[in-house]
């Protein structure tokens, strides 16, 4: 493990997405509580509904192309979540899929580029940036560290682990930030001291996804 080259198949990516979905289901209440503190208390409920729809849509179905799979994921989220996180995550997966295109397998480099495109989608629809205290504080460092590691030819497993660590740090940093986007921004300074719910969910989703990819890798 570690120096084998990771090749991500569409099939394995479905498993990763289902793993992300399970992570969301397990943390529904925690996410809702985070949102209750600085938002409107529905983030866990929203994502739970969204990922249930994703699961229904993709589980057991066979896809041959990333673009197809991820368009289904994006639409499931977009048309069932609502709120802020629906369009944001929808855009993330839609743009990822568009970048990966119609192929059935992707290298880690291609995966990293797709994540970057996804993050770009989130930035552009939400007009947000880093340190606004949003999911971008997880997505951006994750994407950047992943790309850097891949460029530096770091072993695949290590790339994913470092990216996840960067995501975790980004998530934890949101605690000390003043929110400038989303509902928490209404609080101004009062938002300090609370973790952003979207940052927490992004971390969960990415972590579960990467762990699933890694375990598949290890299983080989």
């Amino acid at each position, binding site marked *: 493990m570690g120096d084998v080259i990771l090749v991500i198949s569409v099939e394995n990516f479905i498993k990763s997405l289902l793993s992300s979905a399970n992570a969301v289901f397990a943390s529904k209440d925690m996410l*809702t509580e985070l949102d*209750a503190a*600085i*938002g*409107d*208390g*529905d983030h*866990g*409920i*929203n994502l739970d*509904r969204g990922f249930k729809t994703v699961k229904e849509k993709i589980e057991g179905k066979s896809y041959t192309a990333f673009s197809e799979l991820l368009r289904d994921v994006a639409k499931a989220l*977009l*048309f*069932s*979540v*609502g*709120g*802020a*996180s*629906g*369009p*944001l995550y929808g855009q993330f997966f839609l743009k990822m899929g568009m970048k990966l295109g119609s192929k059935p397998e992707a290298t880690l480099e291609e995966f990293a580029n797709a994540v970057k495109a996804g993050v770009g989608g989130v930035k552009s*629809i*939400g007009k947000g940036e880093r340190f606004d205290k949003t999911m971008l504080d997880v997505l951006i460092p994750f994407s950047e560290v992943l790309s850097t590691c891949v460029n530096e030819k770091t072993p695949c497993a290590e790339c994913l682990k470092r990216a996840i660590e960067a995501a975790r740090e980004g998530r934890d940093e949101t605690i000390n930030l003043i*929110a*400038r*986007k*989303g*509902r928490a*921004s*209404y*609080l*101004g300074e*009062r938002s300090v001291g609370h973790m952003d719910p979207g940052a927490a969910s992004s971390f969960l989703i990415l972590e579960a996804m990467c762990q699933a990819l890694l375990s598949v890798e290890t299983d080989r």
Partner: protein
Amino acid sequence: MKKLINSPEDVVSESVEGLVFAHESLLELHPSARVVMRRDRRREKVALISGGGSGHEPLHVGYVGYGMLDAACPGEIFTSPTPDQMYEAAKATDRGQGILFIVKNYTGDTMNFSIAVDLLTAEDYSVEQVVIADDVAVQDSLYTAGRRGVGGTVFAEKIVGAKAEEGASLEELKELCEKVSNDVRSMGVALTSPTVPASGKPTFEIATDEMEIGIGIHGEPGRERVKLRTAKEIVEVMAKAIVEDLPFVAGDQVAVMVNGMGGSPLIELYLVYRELKNYLDKIGIGISRSLVGNYITSLEMQGVSITLLRLDEELKRLWDAPVFTPALRWGM
């Protein structure tokens, strides 16, 4: 959690169904998307559509009908609707004169409505949107999500709805809606927290002697948490913030709304109205139209919001124009 419901997942769909049952000569449900539409869609007019999270009833579903909305798109509780709802609503109510979306300023709403606009524009519909952002409790800034859209939305829907009924063009309606949006300001306070059915717990904790000043209609925290005050003091804080923001000045004629958040009884709302009138009288602002009741709520939250709209003769005329919806009705 104490609610008259069957299950948290079904609240919105069952309630919307009840609404349409109760007003079946006026309303119908879209056959495939969660959209409440006017039954009578013969008239050639711009389609006026709004929507947002549920839990604020009668907003928006209760304002569908003659002289107000052509369709409303209710999301899950406190969660903006999804773009397919607005897309289907627009397609079903468009009469070839274009579509105007009235959107409350929340990140989720603006994004979801914008996606719908993109989808519709791609299919050559002419569609415009106006974002209402009237909550003075929130500091306005280009670098944040901006102000929340609250009570001003009710005024916008009534006034723009009346003008749409007169046959005004999409451009004229957009302009009028922006004017209303510019001249309206609101602020709210909460005594208790709402409970989102799916969560089952109060959104925020609040002591029995505390109130939240500047509350949002989703129970978002406001400007400050203070000890409970008298109605007179509470009204002064809210009215002052509203008046100074626009600012409203002596001699202005206004429409006011004293709006209950869902759990405050009417006896208190009229008492608040008395305090508001006394306050505005003192500073020379004249109330020429008023609404007192539950118009934009936050589930069972106890509390009240105040909205002031500066009026001119055209707005008065449009305000007085006949309206026939489940929640607002006069002149017919």
